[in-house]
């Protein structure tokens, strides 16, 4: 595996992302939209009474953004027909995977960080000192989700109804291994029941396994 | 809450109805496909004769 290649792919992706701003804007607006919807239907003082609800809203936003982000990463590439070029260049499929994962993760984590800010403002919610840990859990969950989300997005990039497929295919895989532990860990941090560490013990190994699966299968995924 | 015996009967019935239903479904689809194959093969023969 050529780490130089992975790094250059990541940089290239991020650069084109920042230049076009198309993907980033979409994600930020999506985040605001989701939060506004929840704001509209819920009591703004909810945080004080229900940490699980805050955690749920946060992660609904994070995962929506993650799904759209990863669909965009491989969808745009596909529409422009540039993915084949990446594969042919020396360095291996896993380098492509890592590079794109890094770029997507950077973008998604940035938007999710903004979401934390938006939620605080919209709901007048004060995270307090625990914000750092909440951010770290967001990082872990986002990475876990994207690690396998990239594989699925790349897999179905050529299919009809690929966006719907991505969600359908991701649910069985990530619901209990990444999604629920993320929500549970965040809720625990915000004052609810449950522990942080037991959830991390789930998410981190799951992410490792997903990356390993990507290592084994990405060459097949990238075939045309 | 239905009695234990009711639950058992429902479970049993659903299981076997489910199995037979699936077998029936496979049968029906197979017959339809066989008919279609026959039609196409007939068309091929007719085309060959021309």
């Amino acid at each position, binding site marked *: 595996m050529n780490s130089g290649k992975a790094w250059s792919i990541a940089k290239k992706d991020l650069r084109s992302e920042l230049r076009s701003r198309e993907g980033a804007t979409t994600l930020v607006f999506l985040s605001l939209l989701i939060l506004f919807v929840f704001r509209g239907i819920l009591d703004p003082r909810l945080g004080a009474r229900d940490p699980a609800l805050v955690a749920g809203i946060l992660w609904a936003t994070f995962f929506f953004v993650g799904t759209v982000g990863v669909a965009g990463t491989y969808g745009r590439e596909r529409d422009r027909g540039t993915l084949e070029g990446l594969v042919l260049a020396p360095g291996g499929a896993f380098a492509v995977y890592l590079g794109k994962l890094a770029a997507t993760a950077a973008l998604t984590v940035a938007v999710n960080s903004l979401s934390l800010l938006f939620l605080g403002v919209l709901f007048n919610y004060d995270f307090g000192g625990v914000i750092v840990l909440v951010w770290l859990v967001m990082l872990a969950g986002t990475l876990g989700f994207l690690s396998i989300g990239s594989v699925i997005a790349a897999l179905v990039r050529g*299919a*009809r109804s690929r966006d719907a497929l991505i969600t359908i295919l991701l649910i069985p895989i990530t619901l209990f291994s990444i999604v629920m532990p993320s929500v549970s860990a965040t809720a625990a941090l915000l004052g609810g029941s449950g522990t942080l560490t037991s959830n991390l013990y*789930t998410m981190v190994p*799951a992410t490792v*396994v997903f990356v390993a699966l990507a290592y084994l299968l990405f060459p097949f995924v990238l075939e045309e | 809450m239905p009695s234990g*015996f009711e639950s058992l009967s429902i479970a*049993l019935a659903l299981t076997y109805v*489910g199995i037979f239903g699936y077998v029936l479904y*496979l049968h029906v689809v197979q017959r339809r*496909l066989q008919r279609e194959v026959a039609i196409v093969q007939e068309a091929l023969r007719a085309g060959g004769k021309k």
Partner: protein
Amino acid sequence: MKEGDRWGPMLSVAWLGAGLVHVALAFLWAPDPRSTSWADPIAFRIFFFHVPLAWSGYLAFGIVFAASIVFLRTRNARWDHLAVASAGVGVVLISLALVTGALWQEAETGEYWRWDDARLFTTFVLWLVYLAYVALRSTGEGGEGEARMAAIYGIVAFASVPISFFSVRLLPALHPPPGSREYMTPVFVAVLLVGVVVFTLLYLLLLRHRLALLKQALTLEEAKQSLEGA
């Protein structure tokens, strides 16, 4: 393609016989009246059907998993056919397992579902996996591309089931209920094993049926293509 299927009817009748024996055993088995392992000893017999159904559902997707791996390496379409057929049969079996599981759960506790039952939960996850796999295969792409996509997904999704299972063990809200093992008498286990064997045979018979259907569909495709070519 032979018109008649000499073995089919014989095997089906033989299976029906075995199935009947299994049902009889399930009814003849008597629980220890002093045992407190369950709320309703009659409904508990659902176990003898739920467990074998779940087992064959797992087996079916295990075959999908194995066939997918072999397909990716050999690109021989036969393995893809095996995966499709096995998934088709498995979806039926796992759905029945889920329904019987819920019925049993309801008889035991009054609720149709409990997240803290690890077995019920894993069956549910596998059911979701099946649905996703079937959804993927019905996009109508067809051919090598679809086979490859499905094979990769089959592998990933199957690998994720144990991951989900271990997550549940650790999630604080989903502790498995303290189970009493006193009902695991040798007789109980024997009847259960009979069930497992019977339903494994069922899976194999249904698979055979489903593969025949697949072959028929392929024959039709070929015939249609010759027609267009002529």
